[in-house]
Every structure is written in structure tokens, then in C-alpha cells.
């Protein structure tokens, strides 16, 4: 009997570990550069749309790459090690392999233009206080689940018909 209890306990523990690590969305991504949002927004006075240029006009917000970074960082501005990495990418004309963390599944239509430009939803509603972030995203700010979408849509009296987003 005691042996059985021990076996069940081990099985339960393994299951818990699996749920926490593999099955949940708490995957941790390591970005190629330890980008500092705070420095760019608070100190340099940039807005989100200065670098994520397609937010207001396109479905996808676009993750800025060397072409945009080049505008300021062609020559190093500080002695930061992270900036050196960026300057190296620019010199080699090699795109930065950013990892997209916030990813809406393909069966749902999500448009930044619809939400930000037309719906006037603030970036921080879904992405959190990015202006205070000193490190890049390693996990999504919120788990990207339908319940979150529906919560917001119902609260703001937006259409919750399935075919509004599902495709």
C-alpha cells in the first residue's frame, strides 16, 4: 500500500513539473540583444510607433531591425556591450534574430491597426508597462488566450461573434 502511495506521489509530481514546464506557455526565450525599452522610451523620448512602424497601419506591428536601428546606432552612442552587439549586426548588414514572443495563433485574425489605430486600445493593455522594462520580452506579458480577447470585447461592447476573428 505504502509503495503505491509513493508511486502515485512521484507520478503526480512528474505531472505537475510537465504542466509547469512543457504544457504551459511559460516558455522563456533568450533574445539576441538585451534591449532596454526604458532607455529608449523614458530617456530618449521615443514612442512605440517610432520603431514598431507598422502598428498603426498594418496587421502586424513589426519588430524593428537593423534598418531602423541604423538611424541612430550606426556609430556606437555608449560603451554598452549590448549596443556593441547591435553595431556589429549593422556593420555585417546581418538582421538581428529577434524572437517573436507575442504570437496570436494563425486561426485567429488579430490586427494592430484595428485595435490601436481604430479601436484606440493602448499598447500597455496587452503588452504591459513596456516603458519601465529594462530587459526585452522573454515571455508574453499575458498568456495569449481567447478568454482575454473575449473579456475585453464584452467589456467594450465589441462584436463577439466567432467569425469576427476566427478564420
Amino acid at each position, binding site marked *: 500500500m505504502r509503495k503505491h502511495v509513493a508511486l502515485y506521489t512521484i507520478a503526480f509530481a512528474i505531472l505537475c513539473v510537465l504542466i509547469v514546464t512543457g504544457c504551459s506557455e511559460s516558455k522563456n526565450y533568450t533574445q539576441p540583444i538585451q534591449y532596454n525599452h526604458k532607455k529608449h522610451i523614458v530617456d530618449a523620448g521615443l514612442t512605440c510607433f517610432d520603431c514598431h512602424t507598422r502598428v498603426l497601419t498594418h496587421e502586424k506591428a513589426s519588430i524593428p531591425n537593423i534598418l531602423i536601428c541604423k538611424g541612430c546606432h550606426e556609430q556606437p552612442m555608449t560603451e554598452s556591450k549590448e549596443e556593441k552587439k547591435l553595431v556589429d549586426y549593422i556593420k555585417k548588414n546581418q538582421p538581428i534574430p529577434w524572437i517573436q514572443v507575442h504570437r496570436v*495563433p*494563425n*486561426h485567429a*485574425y488579430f*490586427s494592430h*491597426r*484595428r485595435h490601436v*489605430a*481604430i479601436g484606440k486600445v493602448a499598447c500597455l493593455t496587452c503588452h504591459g508597462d513596456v516603458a519601465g522594462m529594462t530587459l526585452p520580452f522573454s515571455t508574453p506579458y499575458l498568456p495569449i488566450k481567447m478568454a482575454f480577447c473575449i473579456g475585453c470585447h464584452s467589456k467594450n461592447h465589441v462584436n463577439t*461573434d*466567432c*467569425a*469576427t*476573428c*476566427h*478564420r
Partner: protein
Amino acid sequence: MKWGMVIDLQKCTGCGECVAACKLENNVAIVEPKESEMGRTMLWMDMLTVYEGEYPRLRVRQFPRPCMHCDHPPCTKVCPVRATYRNEEGIVAQIYPQCIGCRYCMAACPYTVKSFNWYKPEWAPGIRETANPDVSVRLVGVVEKCTFCVHRLQKAKEQAKAEGRNLREGDFQTACAESCPAGAIVFGDLENTNHRVNPLSRSPRATRLLEDLGTEPKVIYLKEVD
């Protein structure tokens, strides 16, 4: 608003352009010939062939057959999980992540417009990249069918809203209607008198498939003039 389609059989040449356009637009899987023989061909828009009379007075008629988007759809009534339902604009939608693959809807549909995904979506090398990113690739074990290109409606509505206006005729067209070289397929709002489909649907030539079932299809055929 009630989206509907008018197919003029007088103009239709049976070329199959609509079938090809639909297949490409909606990432509909291509099955092996062997499976196709087992009745597992996947087509959202099919070209049906009807043979009339006998040789030498044989007449072959062909007509395109998308989902009828019935006003009283039998398929939605049998779905146990509401994976298929009729929305306010008259589109009979199919929500893939909700579908459990029971295939009740396939049995219920008198027009046999639904297809079941028997296999994992597999693509020949290089083909995956050419898939339409606006339409999701369905997983194995779910039922799919023509959606009246609802992904185009989502984009058209967004564009209209960004420009601060209402949806105009032509903003939202299905891939089949857009591709038809003979202009036989007309798509639009059946309730809007400014849309071409409205007068066409009331034409004396207008007919619907299996009308006596009471499904009230929103795909209207215009009979050939003999």
C-alpha cells in the same frame, strides 16, 4: 446585411477557374488519387456535372457548387459543440478549433459541401510558403467548408472602418466571384438594393438547389435559357 451569391448558369462555361481559385485562396488540401477514389477529395467549391438525355442527344451541364450558406442550415442544428453556426450576417461559419470531428454536420448537409480532414496537413517542399497566410491550415480530424471567404470580410471591414465609411459593394468579394472570367458569379448583400445580387436574386430565372427542403440557401442559380 445578408451575404449571398448569384451564379448565372447561362454565363458559366464550366471552366473550373472558381474551383482552382477557391482551393488556392483557402489552402484546401490536395489529396492523393487513391484517397480521392475513396471519396476524400477536398473541395470547397466543386464543379458538378449533370448528364441529360442519351447519346447522341446527350447534354452535359456543369455548375459550380459552393456552400449554400442556408438561412435554415441543417448542419448547425446537429453540431453538438457549436463549431458551426449561422451568424448575424448570414454566413454559416465553421470554427475549426471548436470542431471535434464527429461529422454529424457532414451527414446533415443535403448539398454535401463539407469535407473532413483525414490526414495531417502535409505539403510538398516549397509549397507551404505559398499558402495564403490569411487562412489557417486546418488540422487533422476537423470538418471544413466554404466560408464565403470570411477572412476577406474581416479585412474589408477593417479597411472601411479605417477610412471612416460603410462597406461598399466590391469591398468584399469571394475568391470564386473575383476569379470567374465569364462574370457568372456575383457576390454581395442580398438585402441591399444597390448591390447587383439583389435584383438578380429576384430574376424569373432564379432558382435554388433542393428548395423544397426549406433550407433557404443564399446561393441562387440563374437557369440557363434553352
